[in-house]
């Protein structure tokens, strides 16, 4: 399938390339195009000979020159400005001032199943265009709009290359179900689950191909997507060719260096020795490497008391330094946009080669995109064909090394003095030469002896036809057929001499292969009728349609050990048995929907939008299958009223009121409402006599399962002053989720499982959002736009199963330790801890907590809810300053009131952690241990729940646009960017931005320095 489509694309590309032809010459018209308002020049404006594809674009100074025949009409256009036409003669100079259209608000925004004039939108909708995207080495599309939209929080899940971002729109509306928004790319609602071996479905799109992000926030905008819309919708449109536009070739190249901005403060080798001398004077043998009188390495635990002839060698290893690297990212993207006769096209190829800061991790992505959007039959039939291919090679490295680098004893060497275990130092089991199963694995060996790669290929595309009926041009029919197919293949190889995968009886190592195949097919059809009824000063638009979508997946795995046992000392190998586990896993889901929308505009002032959607999902049993999701919204364009119409200062003033119900059906398995039986594997069998039988297990199920329903109220105001030099919006919302899907204890004996998904409980998000964008300076040579947005969100669980709290949030360190709770009256996943008591110097006293229920003892009943991971306030700021050829851009984000549980500290910040007598082995600690003075683990102290408010400067870019390159045939822009420039925070862990609130095994987010080059010709 992938191969087939690729071949097609290549064919298409060659056809397009062949068709590019030169222009004949006659006489020249030239001039400069300026902004009518402030006289500034307009680079990049289009000048086209009417009715042809012949044309040019203005250069950096707004100059153009075009060769024309006598009596030619030229069409001058620029995005955001009103198009003008002029009759011109060869040899003349035509300077032109273009009027800005009512700027931002005259734009169309993409909404579900259609587009709408932004000024007529009644929902809370924010569109971000390519020009406003964040800049620099952003390989993940979500990063383009981080911090840009009020009410939207985007944070990357860590520092691994190609890693996904967590996107939350107005706080999560679910507890157990997914809180990810629905992402729709060119009309294809994509699934968030693309299978193992991939990192994020959005990452299969090259950021350079994206034209707009439209974020639908309130229910009146999202309800058209029904059962999948509770967490908001992000609609992504890709760039397209424009009819009549000349060929434009754009190249963008980036070269980046990724740095580790900060590592954790742990003991160095000499500090660790000193620490050991103080705390474990009798265990100094644990340090370094011991050699017996014959010069052989022996386990530290085996050193005899007299030490006669034995030698201890202490090393000095900075393990964090050993596993990280400065990494390079190279990124190339080239696109051709234009029109061939009546066929506008865009073709793009992108290549990203990103190394991770964790050694060996890498992400290589090739993307191909084709968009064709011809208009046929006298503008009656618009076709839209999009095809995107993404071919990713991942090297995952081994993130286990991050935690191991914190814990590995710094007095140990990277390389084994005796060359065993592939040459990497390994903790030995006492009395033996086999690896110690409890000791920390050598972090470098974890990376170097781990080959974990995948090829993730994804092809998605659609064919869309919009037909305007000949006999009734007000009526459109729209058909959208789409497919999204991804196939991932991965291999994991770990040699049998690697200590971490060693097995001293069976031959160890791993040789695993897996595949993951996902197919997602879509058919949408709708009819749209628009009518201006001048007699009653009204405009109506009615849309109705249905949608059918099918999701199918198949995962396979084949895991083996390496059936040769290698003696680590002698190197001898012997044949051993193969331990194999393989299997296949398949599922299928169908969604069928009917939907409709009515837009009614009265006197171009009063707007009404009503939508409904009826969704059926195969995930639920027949009785609960169908759900109805309605919405209603009213808008009032106050600035069109007589009392404001003449007030020049007010250019936009629209009040929006919306209500709607949306759903969430993405709740884990496809068959949760169905009783099933499944066989186990051949390593969990049970013998009768000496015959082993596979286990057949019935699964728990809940036939009453259905979707969550979220009811949203939204009141919003869009405003714009002084020709929209200053504009923005304010929104207040309340979202109540009922039938909250919770993974809750099942009554004992009531089912074949003790935990099950049930629709129980309610959750409320209340919030306020504001955004303001101002063009502070708008002059000929100087331009400065500053944008600011703020979100205040409060999340509260209002009802739970029988009012009972549910513990959640497992941490590293010990089994069964949970640190969070879902409790009524509290924010979701609040921390649930003991209240630490401090001494007069403010130092925590080990094991001393407040007896909150005053029963004279400290029991789990004394735990209390203390803080939560979600921020109370989010802010985003971005600034774009241009002076002549220079431009300076920055964007940053701040979160306030978010807390994190510092699990790295609670796991590595107590003295006895440093000497473990199971094994035995020594373990490094954070130097903070000296401030805390705990001897044993105190995981549940609120000491570790730390404020993690922060301001992060995401992006600073300085760029320069060159003039007069290659006789004006070429625009050249170079830029320098630093991403993740700095972070201001009081949080003592590595990074305050902790997804989910539990900070463990932190892969640092890199700081990225990028040099970029843009060529347009």
């Amino acid at each position: 399938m992938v191969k087939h489509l690729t071949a097609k694309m290549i064919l298409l590309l060659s056809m397009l390339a062949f068709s590019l032809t030169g222009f004949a010459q006659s006489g020249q018209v030239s001039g400069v195009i300026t902004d009518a308002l402030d006289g500034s020049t307009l680079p990049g404006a289009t000048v086209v000979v009417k009715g042809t594809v012949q044309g040019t674009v203005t250069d950096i100074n707004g100059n153009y020159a075009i060769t024309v025949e006598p009596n030619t009409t030229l069409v001058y256009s620029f995005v955001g400005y009103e198009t003008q036409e002029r009759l011109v003669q060869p040899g003349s100079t035509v300077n032109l001032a273009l009027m800005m259209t009512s700027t931002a608000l005259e734009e169309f925004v993409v909404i579900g199943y259609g587009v709408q004039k932004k000024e007529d939108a009644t929902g809370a909708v924010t569109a971000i265009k390519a020009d406003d995207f964040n800049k620099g080495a952003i390989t993940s599309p979500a990063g383009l709009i981080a911090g840009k939209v009020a009410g939207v929080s985007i944070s990357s899940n860590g520092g691994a290359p190609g890693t996904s971002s967590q996107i939350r729109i107005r706080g999560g509306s679910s507890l157990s179900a997914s809180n990810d928004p629905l992402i729709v790319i060119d009309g294809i609602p994509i699934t968030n689950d693309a299978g193992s071996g991939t990192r994020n479905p959005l990452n299969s799109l090259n950021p350079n191909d994206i034209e707009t992000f439209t974020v639908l926030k309130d229910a009146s905008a999202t309800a058209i997507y029904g059962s999948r819309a509770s967490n908001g919708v992000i609609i992504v449109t890709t760039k397209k060719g424009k009819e009549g536009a000349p060929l434009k070739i754009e190249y963008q190249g980036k070269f980046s260096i990724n740095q580790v901005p900060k590592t954790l403060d742990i003991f160095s080798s000499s500090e660790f020795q000193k620490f050991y001398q103080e705390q474990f004077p009798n265990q100094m043998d644990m340090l370094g490497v011991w050699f017996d009188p014959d010069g052989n390495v022996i386990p530290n635990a085996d050193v005899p008391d007299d030490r006669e002839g034995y030698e201890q060698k202490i090393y000095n290893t900075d393990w964090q330094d050993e596993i990280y690297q400065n990494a390079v990212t190279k990124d190339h993207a080239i696109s051709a946009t234009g029109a061939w006769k009546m066929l506008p096209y865009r073709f793009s190829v992108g290549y990203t080669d990103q190394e991770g800061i964790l050694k060996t991790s890498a992400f290589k992505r090739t993307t191909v995109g084709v968009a064709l959007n011809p208009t046929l039959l006298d503008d009656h039939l618009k076709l839209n064909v999009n095809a995107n291919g993404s071919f990713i090679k991942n090297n995952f490295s081994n993130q286990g090394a991050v935690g191991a680098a914190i814990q590995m004893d710094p007095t140990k060497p990277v390389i084994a003095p005796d060359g065993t275990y592939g040459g990497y130092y390994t903790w030995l089991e006492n009395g033996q030469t086999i690896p110690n199963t409890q000791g920390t694995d050598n972090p470098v060996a974890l990376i170097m002896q781990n080959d974990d790669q995948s090829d993730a290929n994804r092809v998605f595309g659609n064919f869309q036809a919009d037909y305007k009926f000949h006999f009734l041009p007000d009526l459109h029919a729209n058909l959208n057929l789409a497919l999204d197919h991804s196939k991932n293949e991965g291999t994991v190889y770990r040699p049998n001499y690697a200590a971490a995968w060693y097995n001293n009886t069976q031959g160890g190592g791993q040789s695993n292969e897996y595949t993951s195949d996902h197919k997602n097919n879509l058919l949408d059809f709708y009819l749209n009728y628009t009518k201006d009824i001048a007699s009653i000063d009204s405009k109506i638009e009615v849309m109705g349609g249905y949608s059918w979508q099918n999701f199918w997946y198949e995962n396979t795995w084949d895991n083996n050990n390496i059936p040769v046992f290698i003696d680590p000392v002698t190197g001898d190998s012997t044949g051993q048995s193969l331990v194999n586990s393989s299997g296949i896993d398949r599922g299928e889901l169908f969604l069928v929907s009917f939907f409709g929308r009515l837009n009614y505009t009265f006197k171009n002032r009063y707007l009404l939008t009503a939508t409904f959607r009826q969704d059926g999902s195969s995930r639920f049993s027949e009785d609960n299958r169908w759900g109805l999701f309605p919405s209603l919204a009213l808008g009032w364009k106050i600035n069109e009223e007589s009392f404001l119409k003449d007030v020049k200062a007010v250019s936009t003033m629209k009040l929006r009121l919306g209500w709607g119900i949306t759903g969430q059906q993405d709740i884990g398995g496809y068959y949760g409402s169905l009783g099933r039986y499944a066989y186990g594997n051949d390593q969990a069998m049970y013998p009768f006599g000496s015959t082993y039988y596979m286990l057949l297990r019935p699964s728990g199920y809940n036939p009453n399962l259905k979707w969550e329903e979220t009811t949203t109220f939204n009141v919003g105001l869009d405003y714009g002053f002084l020709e929209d030099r200053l504009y923005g919006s304010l929104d207040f919302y309340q979202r109540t989720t009922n039938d909250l899907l919770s993974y809750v204890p099942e009554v004992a004996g009531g089912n074949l499982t003790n935990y099950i998904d049930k629709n129980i409980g309610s959750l409320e998000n209340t919030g306020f959002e504001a955004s303001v964008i101002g063009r502070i300076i708008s002059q000929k040579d100087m331009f400065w736009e500053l944008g600011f947005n703020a979100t205040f969100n409060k999340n509260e669980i209002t009802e739970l199963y029988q009012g009972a709290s549910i513990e959640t949030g497992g941490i590293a360190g010990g089994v069964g330790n949970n640190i969070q709770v879902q409790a009524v009256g509290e924010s979701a996943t609040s921390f649930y801890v003991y209240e630490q008591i401090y001494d007069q110097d403010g130092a925590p006293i080990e094991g001393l907590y407040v007896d909150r229920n005053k029963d004279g003892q400290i029991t789990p009943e004394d735990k209390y809810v203390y803080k939560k991971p979600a921020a109370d306030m989010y802010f985003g700021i971005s600034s774009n300053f241009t002076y002549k050829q220079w431009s300076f851009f920055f964007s940053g984000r701040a979160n306030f009131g978010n807390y994190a549980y510092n699990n790295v500290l609670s796991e590595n910040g107590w003295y006895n952690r440093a000497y473990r007598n199971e094994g035995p082995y020594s373990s490094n600690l954070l130097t903070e241990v000296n401030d805390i003075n705990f001897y044993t683990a105190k995981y549940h102290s609120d000491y570790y729940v730390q404020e993690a408010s922060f301001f992060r400067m995401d992006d600073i870019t300085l760029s320069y646009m060159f003039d007069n390159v290659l006789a004006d045939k070429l625009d050249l822009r170079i830029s320098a960017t630093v991403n993740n420039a700095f972070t201001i925070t009081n949080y003592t862990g590595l990074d305050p931005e902790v997804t989910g609130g539990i900070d463990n095994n932190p892969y640092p987010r890199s700081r990225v320095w990028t040099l970029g080059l843009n060529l347009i010709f």
Partner: protein
Amino acid sequence: MRKIFYIIALIGVSALMFSACTKDLDTIPIDPDENTAGTVFDDPEAYTSFLAKCYAGLATGGNHGGDGEPDVAGIDGGFSQYLRQYWYHQELSTDEAIISWDDATIKDFHYQQWGTGDVFVAAMYYRVYYQISLCNEYLRQTADGKLSDRGVSDDWRTKIKAYRLEVRFLRALSYWHALDLFGSVPFVDENDPIGSGGFYPSQYTKAELFAFIESELKDIEGQMMAPGTNEYGRADQGAVWTLLAKLYMNAEVYLGQNKYADCISYCDMITGSSYQLAPTWQQLFYSNNDQVPATMSEIIFPIRYDGQRTKTWGGTTFLVHAAIGGSMVGTDYGVDGGWGGTRVTPQFVEKFDMNTDQRAVFYTDGQTMNIATVGDFTNGYAYPKFVNYSIVNGNKEDGYAQDFPDTDFPLFRLGDIYLMYAEAVVRGGGGSMSQALGYVNDLRTRAGVSTISESELTKEFILDERARELGWEGHRRTDLIRYGLFTSVDYVWEWKGNTQQGRATDDKYNLYPLPAADVNGNPNLDQNPLY
């Protein structure tokens, strides 16, 4: 015009499609390993595999090796394993065991200060009810009507009839655990519905539960296979009798009324059948304890493990590994290393004649007898009783794999029956005092310690003998409660009540609490007193 025709045709086709599309919503699993109850039993071997699952419910934490696809949620799969949790509850709470780890509330077992939200208490409780639900589902799916509907052959129906008896035994076993650990608990059987339909099991009193277990066992007793005639590992009459004997042994705790005479008569039935003491005590805990007939003849009902095919991080994998730490060398015990967890208290050690008793398998090198620091493995003697090797013709042979031992766990064995008999006699249940003395001395002789006289055979002596003979085999908490010593000031051990010298605790700890989640979730339930 033709275009219009096309468009109309398109709409027509679409309209047809959506009526078809709504039918798509009736999906069935397409996974080759997954079936609905409607299809899985097309192959009658499925009844045997389902029976194997009912047994494996005691042995592994999940449906995949190493506790993958865990049965019980809310806790790590290996920790959720039945035997491991049962052992925590029965041993860590007593003088026989203490653990150094930091897993959630694990040390609270030894301190006797657990609460209603304890994650391990919940794991045990839900594991017991998982097992009961599994057995109920088995009985539901093998009801006569279902078998007739599916056209099951007569041969298979005969087999399934026997399977059903064993499943009822397994269910009774778990109900006995529920009774012993939790007291008055919810009751469900195969006649109750499943599937989150708003059904709430009602709570049985201890007496009602006792009566149910007793009547079930008596009902199946006569139909089970004779002792030693079923495939090894499957329940037979011996298993049923042993469970009845244990139920009667503790009847005074459950009902306030003793049934020692009944206990004696069931012990007699067991000793009167083919069971024999193994030649040595240690071989009962070897990796080949399911291979050697002389060993197997003492084991009445085992929980079975295999390093290749029955893998779990609980069970004997836990028992062997966790007991190794400090200067102990893993391969000396047939495993790849130690987990440095479990030791014994000095009060337990003091019951042994360290020089002669072969059952005093303590490891003392580098270990202190007293436990100053609970979290330090070298505090307290190690007790590597379960091992993953065997001695065959004087040679040490390791189990199949060093990560997952082969060693079976002898849940019921003849040694226990001997001591139950003796105790029931001493407690006045009838029987023969000389027989009782003979049994106790048989065990002592096998262990290499001196025999005792009839006057020395007191009930206190028997309690200590049970510790020596049956240490870490999952009996201790039940025994101490039967003797009234579990929470009492009359017998304390290090760290009982969370002080090193030990102290009395509240009597409420004689029962574990029902998990708060179930009391909140099931309106029919009352919590145990004082929790």
